[in-house]
């Protein structure tokens, strides 16, 4: 296991006793003094797809050539006379150059202790490995989850081999803790190699956990034990009714090699497509240990994975299993609705609606039928639609375009699991605690109301056997009219500005609300003065109201919701200060009073900033990327990034600044910490740049 330490000791004495070095890898050849491993990042998801060029060293005078390029996750292939790796060269695809362990990449001899011994041993090994580091770019890290945060790593090491990876993986809790802490420690820019891991069934999960490099040793071990590996797990060949390959070692090994190489391609494709999580969920059900590991990842390391999870993607989010409920982006959506979200001021009646299979909801037949009913109401703009759904909990209508609300696909059965019921109940309860309405109408089917009824006492229930039946729709119309009337009475009973405080007491921290004047939209309700959008007519005052003005005001408040959802309460409110919204949903433009455009909502569900909009967000101190003093021409690369707001995620709209001056706006290609740390890779795809 670790006598490799002798190598260190003996080398100091000038005696190179290679028999003590790690096996044949070192023994068989000169140790390349320097190995160049350059890593560039192409595509990003929860995991990295790194393009790695290995330029192995070699004996002096030998032409090292151009090296090899691989995409991660990748296998490092073990090869010896007894167990040659040549069989799997057949499966090397163009994106998977064939990297031989010990030849193309040399893992230095290192000290390590078994995982279960006290932390002092690991710290000792870490110190020794650091002292004996040969500058070859590969560093063996001995750490347990306790001392991983303090582990020392050479600055120029670009591949970190994690000792005891396999032992750690045998315990889901330990593994998750170790893998995430090690990843936090080594940062975004290095590759993590897990020696002895990489069976096809666990490859996707391990990649999702942050591991980039694997080796073929488990494939050899399994073949020796007569075990056939594929994405379903490890299956004893002798017990199979129909055998997929010959029963000799070589045949099984070849089968395992192919299964592994094929799965690596699938994982890389999934990363490139942004669907790794879906692949992971399909794979983990092969083994309870894998499921346990995924659950630990979701529950125990939410912050770690949320930071690495894009805020936007165009693919369908398939929420096919119970574990989908805890995907980072889904949990993030629920948290944002709970923490950042405030209902629009103009909303007086809450309408709970069932979700639809078609996304965004408003494109579905059922929601178009609901819209027709709403449209016929005189005060339709006072009705706030909130969709009750799994796995997102609740989706206010104005956020229906946001990821993943417009992108998820769940099995539709009309039946709720206990987990879903619990999750939805807690979302609804938290929502109603923060946002109050004059009246509530529920158009949810009976089986949903069954477990929600106690949370919405007094709600007018309008759904019959089917939400879209003529009877249900007509009841919906009546219910809404009654609710609007009741809400109006509620307002008349408590006249004036009390409405703002009464219905949305928590909203004080939304910039503009407490300032009173100027920011028309926030104090528009109930004051009856010269407020609201440029129409100058208040809403909810009972005075003669313009439907158009109410409509515009609603548009603006809904946009404020989106801005707050996207940029946070402070920056979102600053962005919308005095702004108005024009255009036909979903292609709406946001304008400042001056007439300058601040941004635009598109069907990608996010607000795209203009330079002017960016200035507002940057002034509020959020979603800002600080760059060196240069005029951006194309994309911003990480090397030019000095710092970035920690809340930035891949896919976010960000403002590129230098010393307080906005230079560009665009879409982040990596998260804030990552673009700050990395020295390469595209950080921001710019949309607009300042002139000059």
């Amino acid at each position, binding site marked *: *296991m670790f006598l490799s330490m002798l190598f260190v000791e003996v080398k100091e004495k000038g005696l190179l006793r290679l028999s003590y070095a*790690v*096996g044949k890898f070192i023994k068989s050849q000169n140790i390349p003094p320097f190995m160049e491993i350059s890593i560039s990042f192409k595509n990003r998801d929860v995991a990295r797809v790194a393009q790695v060029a290995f330029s192995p060293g070699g004996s002096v005078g030998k032409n090292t050539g151009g090296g090899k390029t691989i995409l991660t996750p990748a296998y490092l292939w073990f090869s010896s006379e007894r167990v040659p790796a040549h069989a799997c060269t057949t499966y090397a695809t163009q994106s998977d150059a064939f990297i031989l362990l010990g030849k193309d990449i040399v893992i230095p001899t290192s000290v390590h202790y078994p995982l279960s*011994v*006290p932390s002092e041993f690991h710290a000792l090994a870490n110190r020794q490995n650091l002292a004996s580091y040969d500058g070859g770019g590969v560093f063996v890290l001995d750490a347990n989850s306790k001392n991983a945060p303090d582990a020392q790593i050479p600055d120029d090491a670009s591949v970190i081999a994690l000792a005891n990876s396999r032992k750690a993986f045998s315990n889901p809790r330990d593994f998750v803790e170790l893998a995430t802490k090690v990843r936090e420690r080594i940062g975004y820019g290095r590759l993590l190699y897990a020696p002895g891991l990489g069976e096809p069934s666990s490859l996707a999960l391990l990649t999702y956990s942050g591991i980039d490099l694997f080796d073929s040793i488990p494939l050899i071990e399994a073949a020796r034990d007569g075990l056939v590996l594929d994405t379903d797990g490890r299956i004893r060949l002798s017990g199979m009714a129909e055998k997929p390959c010959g029963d000799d070692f070589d045949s099984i090994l070849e089968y395992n090699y192919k299964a592994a190489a094929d799965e690596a391609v699938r994982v890389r494709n999934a990363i490139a497509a942004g669907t790794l999580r879906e692949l992971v969920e399909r794979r983990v059900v092969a*083994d309870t*240990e894998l499921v346990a590991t995924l659950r630990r990842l979701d529950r125990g390391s939410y912050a770690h994975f949320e930071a690495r999870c894009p805020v936007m993607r165009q693919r369908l989010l398939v929420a096919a299993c119970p574990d989908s409920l805890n995907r980072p982006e889904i949990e993030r959506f629920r948290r944002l609705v709970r923490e950042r979200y405030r209902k629009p001021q103009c909303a007086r009646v809450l309408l709970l609606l069932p979700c639809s299979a078609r996304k965004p909801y408003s494109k579905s037949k059922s929601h178009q039928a609901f819209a027709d009913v709403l449209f016929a109401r005189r005060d339709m703009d006072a009705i706030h639609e909130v969709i009750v759904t799994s796995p997102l909990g609740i989706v206010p209508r104005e956020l229906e375009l946001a990821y993943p609300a417009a992108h998820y696909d769940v099995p539709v059965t009309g039946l709720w699991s206990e987990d879903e019921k619990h999750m939805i109940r807690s979302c609804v309860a938290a929502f109603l605690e923060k946002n109050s309405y004059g009246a509530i109408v529920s158009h949810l089917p009976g089986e949903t109301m069954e477990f929600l009824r106690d949370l919405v006492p007094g709600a007018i229930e309008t759904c019959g056997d089917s939400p879209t039946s003529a009877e249900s729709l007509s009841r919906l119309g009546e219910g809404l009219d009654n609710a609007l009337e009741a809400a109006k009475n509620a307002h008349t009973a408590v006249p004036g500005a009390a409405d703002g405080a009464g219905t949305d007491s928590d909203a004080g921290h939304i910039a503009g609300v407490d300032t009173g004047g100027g920011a028309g939209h926030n104090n528009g309700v109930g004051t009856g003065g010269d407020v609201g959008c440029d129409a100058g007519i208040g809403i909810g005052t009972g005075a003669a109201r313009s439907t158009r003005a109410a409509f515009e005001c609603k548009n603006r408040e809904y946009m404020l919701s989106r801005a707050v959802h996207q940029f946070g309460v402070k920056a979102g409110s600053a962005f919308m200060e005095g702004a108005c919204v024009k255009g036909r949903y979903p292609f709406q433009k946001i304008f400042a009073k001056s007439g300058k455009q601040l941004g635009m909502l598109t069907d990608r569900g996010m607000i795209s900033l203009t330079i002017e909009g960016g200035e507002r967000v940057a002034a509020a101190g959020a979603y800002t990327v600080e760059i060196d003093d240069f005029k951006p021409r194309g994309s911003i690369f990480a090397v030019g990034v000095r710092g970035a707001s920690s809340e930035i995620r891949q896919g976010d709209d960000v403002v590129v600044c230098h010393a307080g001056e906005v230079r560009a706006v665009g879409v982040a290609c990596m998260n804030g910490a990552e673009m700050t740390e990395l020295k390469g890779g595209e950080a921001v795809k710019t949309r607009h740049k300042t002139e000059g």
Partner: protein
Amino acid sequence: MDEMFAFCRKMNRSFRPKKQDPSKPVACWSEDDLIRDAGSGKWAACKALVMIFRTRGCSWLLKSGCTMCGYFNDSLMAGQEPSDLMSQFEALLPRYKGEAIVKIFNSGSFLDDTEVAESVQDAVVGKLASLGEVRKISLETRPEYVTKERLARLLGVIALGGNDVNLELGIGLESASDEVRGRCVNKGFAYADYERAVSVAQSLGVGIKSYVLLKPPFLTEKEAMEDAAETIIKASETADVVSLNPVNVQSNTLADYLWKRKEYRPAWLWSVVEALIRGAEHIDRNGLDVRLQCDPVGGGSIRGAHNCGTCDGALLDAIKKFTLTRDAAHLKRGIATANGCGCGCREKWLDTLECEGALFGNYDVTGGFYSKSR
């Protein structure tokens, strides 16, 4: 290595010793052995009586202790009167049935007078030497207790008996490498200490039996096997007998701690055989008059050196035959027999030798996901 010193100390302290009777010995049995004829120099079969005394415990154990040694489980870990030891000896003496060799083990150092009082040392050795049929008395000790004075005194006691009795000291060299002995065994002495003890003993005509350890914790199978083979070769230069001892997992040791957590696997019998073959070939090639022997404690069981369970018997049999004949051909025949059973585990062992170093972790023993199949 302070970490190891402290960890072994903690391990040995954390168990509660069983209540032991200080006047009852641990065990006693008679076994087959070889003895060299003083005249012809030829090795001949004989019987040996093994007496295992219960003492206070090894002096090193009381400081820290070795990573694999659990003999302290039989020790008192408390004071003991010399009379208790004498009672043990008197109880065992009737078991003597004319064996040519008597081996006295006390799970510590016989020459350490804080463990075995001088009076007891003298009485035991003197009595055995006077029996007439005893031709060799074998004792065990750590090297620091080997001094000219102590040995001369014991030789004097033997001479009093008037018989031609050889004295042999068993010393646990474990590994010729100070690194392995220090960091993997936590043995607490250096190779130089061993060398000194050997030269002191040999200057007085006292024989040396050198114990070589196979696979202490923290080594890969390959490292362990190669280290054992090299140690056998090095020990053969001076010792009269070299005994290869594969680690068996004894309770309350560091090896046990790791084994229970699936982070240690005792050596494969294949490694035992391989190390013996390498050693025997060296001995034969250089015409050394040293006896290489091996009696794997717990061989074939999960806590001892073992293979797959199918071929273990064939190899254990070969090792036994080799030990009693010094003929390495038995080992090679054993390999062929074991291979012939079709278990295929030699290939798995060869994989282990090749791959384990690249794993930076254990081969074959991890548990959890890696122990499952359908």
